[in-house]
């Protein structure tokens, strides 16, 4: 699906552009080629990092990409969206040594981007068709990885996606300065080139496609539906123009809003990575001001410190220990301010309420769980948090034919975790079938 170029997200450039060949080689040469390398252990998909890096150094970029894709089929998007400071790069021996660590993500981008260019010879040839077919629900990273690995082994893989676009949050949610929607869709097309089919606009559980129909027609089903709608605050004045769910707004900004749209004074509610993302995006898009409101102290934020640091540099203000109690609207119903109370230990302190004027408030306090889907499949259970239950190593659920992984299982981690889950489910199936 081709997206228009003048989308608002395209006003933001890559923060970490692709390395040139000489940059990549120079950085690759610095890698020590550690034995039993700690960076590998810190990667949820356990990519053989020293090996792929040394292949860049020798000029074997194709082999480098193969090393990456063997463990992580979405190694391209991961290279751009992974919070490497918390993962591989965080554990690079140079980090502990107090020196600049190896930019593993950017090297991974260099290799995967270069080796999958349309003018390059295809990196993989899918094996001959086998008589097995798998249905996958949701076209996010978890399902794409699972379907891709299956298709390469000759298994028929078809993904049903409720949205009009595939890619999951890679397309609709990632901050544009990391990955633009069009690049996420290129990766989806690359996976489709292995024979993976994607039907968009089909919601399993609705649209007459029940779980039972899938169980009847396919040898196995993989559930990779991610998370649901943004959670609401449940305070007066929330419903109406100007108050938006964070992921809903990001999706609009990435896919539908046009360049030239101006942002006024923005308040973001929340302290997680989605909150920081939306705040940084607004600040970089030229908002008159961006204020984050978080109910506990900065130290307790679940968002990454390096992301918050970046947000501060870009001009985002943080109001700690405060919590919304309502939204203030004009006679015409327009949003004029958010009313907050100071908090202690997350609880409001009476009599401390005040208003922060704003014309846009983005609520980023979490997303709902899509627990209803579990009831479509007998035996598939949901835990107390509303997440689907699965064995992390194999993706197996309580139903022998049903596998699952990604955000709908872990409650919302990273793309790379979703890829690891999808890959593990594919490996379990392939092993069970003897392929």
């Amino acid at each position, binding site marked *: 699906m081709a997206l228009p170029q003048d989308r608002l997200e395209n006003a933001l450039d890559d923060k970490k552009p692709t390395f040139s060949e000489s940059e990549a080689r120079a950085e690759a040469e*610095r890698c020590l080629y550690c*034995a039993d390398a700690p960076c590998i252990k810190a990667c949820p998909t356990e990519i053989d990092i020293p090996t792929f890096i040394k292949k860049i150094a020798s000029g074997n970029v194709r082999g480098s990409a193969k090393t990456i894709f063997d463990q992580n089929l979405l190694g391209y998007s991961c290279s751009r969206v992974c919070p490497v400071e918390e993962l591989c790069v965080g554990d690079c021996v*140079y980090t502990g040594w107090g020196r600049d660590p190896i930019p593993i993500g950017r090297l991974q981008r260099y290799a995967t981007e270069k080796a999958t260019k349309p003018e390059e010879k295809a990196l993989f040839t899918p094996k001959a068709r086998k008589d097995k077919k798998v249905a996958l629900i949701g076209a996010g990273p978890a399902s794409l990885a699972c379907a891709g690995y299956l298709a390469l082994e000759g298994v028929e893989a078809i993904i049903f996606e409720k949205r009009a676009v595939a890619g999951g949050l890679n397309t609709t949610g990632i901050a544009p300065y990391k990955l633009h929607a069009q690049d996420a869709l290129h990766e989806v097309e690359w996976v489709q080139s292995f024979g993976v089919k994607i039907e968009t606009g089909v919601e399993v559980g609705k649209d007459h496609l029940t779980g039972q129909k899938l169980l009847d027609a396919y040898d196995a089903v993989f559930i990779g539906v991610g998370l649901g709608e943004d959670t609401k605050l449940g305070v007066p004045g929330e419903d109406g123009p100007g108050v938006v769910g964070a992921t809903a707004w990001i999706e609009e900004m990435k896919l539908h809003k046009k360049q030239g749209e101006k942002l006024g004074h923005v308040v973001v509610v929340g302290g997680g990575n989605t909150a920081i993302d939306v705040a940084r995006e607004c600040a970089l898009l030229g908002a008159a001001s961006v204020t984050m409101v978080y109910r506990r102290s900065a130290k307790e934020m679940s968002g990454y410190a390096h992301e918050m640091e970046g947000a501060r540099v870009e001009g985002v203000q943080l109001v700690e220990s405060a919590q919304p109690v309502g939204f203030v609207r004009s006679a015409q119903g327009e949003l004029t301010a958010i009313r907050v109370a100071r908090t202690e230990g997350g609880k409001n302190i009476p009599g401390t309420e005040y208003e922060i004027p704003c014309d846009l408030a983005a609520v980023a306090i979490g997303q709902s769980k899509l627990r209803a889907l579990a009831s479509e499949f007998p035996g598939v259970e949901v835990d107390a948090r509303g997440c689907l239950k699965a064995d992390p190593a194999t993706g197996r659920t309580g139903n022998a034919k049903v596998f699952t992984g990604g955000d709908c299982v872990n409650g919302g981690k990273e793309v790379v975790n979703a890829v690891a889950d999808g890959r593990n489910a594919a490996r379990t199936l392939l092993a069970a079938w003897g392929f």
Partner: protein
Amino acid sequence: MADLSIDFCGIKSPNPFWLASAPPTNTGEQIMRAFDAGWGGAVWKTLGDPIVNVTSRFGAVDLGTYKMMGLNNIELITDRPLEVNLREIREVKRRYPKHVIIASLMTETKEDWRVLIQKCEDAGADGLELNFGCPHGMCERGMGSSVGQEPKLLAEITAWTKEFAKTPVLVKLTPNTGDIVEAGLAAVAGGGDGISLINTVKSIVGVDLDRMVPLPRVGNASTNGGYCGPAVKPIALHLLAALAREEGIKIPISGIGGISNWRDAAEFIALGSTSVQVCTAVMHYGYRIVEDMIEGLSNFLDEKGMKSVNELRGKAVGNYQEWGDLDLGYKLIAKIDAEKCIGCQLCVTACHDGAHQCIFTGNEEKTRPPHAHAHGKATPPTPFPIGKIAGPRVPWVDEPECVGCNLCQLVCPVSGCITMQEVPGGAADTWNARVREGRNKVPGGIHD
């Protein structure tokens, strides 16, 4: 500040740093800039009948991100008319009377040598260097290394030049020979006043794998060239030391080959050089590198309490010995500093795959390989080292099994993290002593 001036068989130079005969000494204009930068002398780009050069001419070996670890060239001697070069020599000597100009020469017949030498000396050259080293192009015409490889010819041509020369004659040797001492003795026999070495090592620097043509490429073909730069330094040091400790060679030596900084220069001088010559490092970074060479060498001499660079000369020659005279009783083992270790475990892999299987990780007993010399299991140290940086990833050395080879220390990226420590070994002993005393039978030989 220590005195850096030298006297090279009568040629006085403000310091031991000379430019080798090569592109940095192509013209008078360049050499004057080099003298302004601090170089003490220059060996002019080899003179003779002008030649025609090809394009391209150079190729290099990069080591990781370090460019030009080794340089290869297929350039010939000067391509400029002799008269122009002589005019410039005259001009440089007029403006820089205290700096050294040596004319490098290459020609064929005795008469040619006579005329060339006379012209150069008339122009004011302080000395002459006979280029018996060039290993490409010129040697196929019966000059350069084809002379350096034939001791008889080398001695004969050197003797011709001595008939005509009033200034000192330096013989520049090629490393492309089986026995450098033979060549050195031939230079002495011919009456040479000094020796320069090394010229470049015969080489093919690489292959263009798309065109299937060796490098550097000239159209669709190439030829062997001469290799120099940091990569050749160890070869040059050995050849230098072999001459320096030879009884029959008393004439001064100008050391060349891969010298890039004062430390390299100091090593050459310690192994017997009186002056040192530099080409590649200047082609890479320019004349300006001499500033650090002068400063670094004099700081070093001051630190060691040496008043003059002459005190350094030859200091390490006596300690260059035959293998058979090395002490078999001397023992070192590797020690890892847990505080400095970053946990890369390169030492573990290197020791296991490339040495003696005696570095381990993890706080449990390890089974030694079946060929181990020490008996029983290898036990981790107590307390088990927990590093400041690497935590429990710090490896440990099975000391009874360590043969002290240095490999782990060589691969460790953290300087000072692995040190080789002296431990009590056996009584002093050498292989040569064992041979003399008939103790040289090691069990497990071909006839056991």
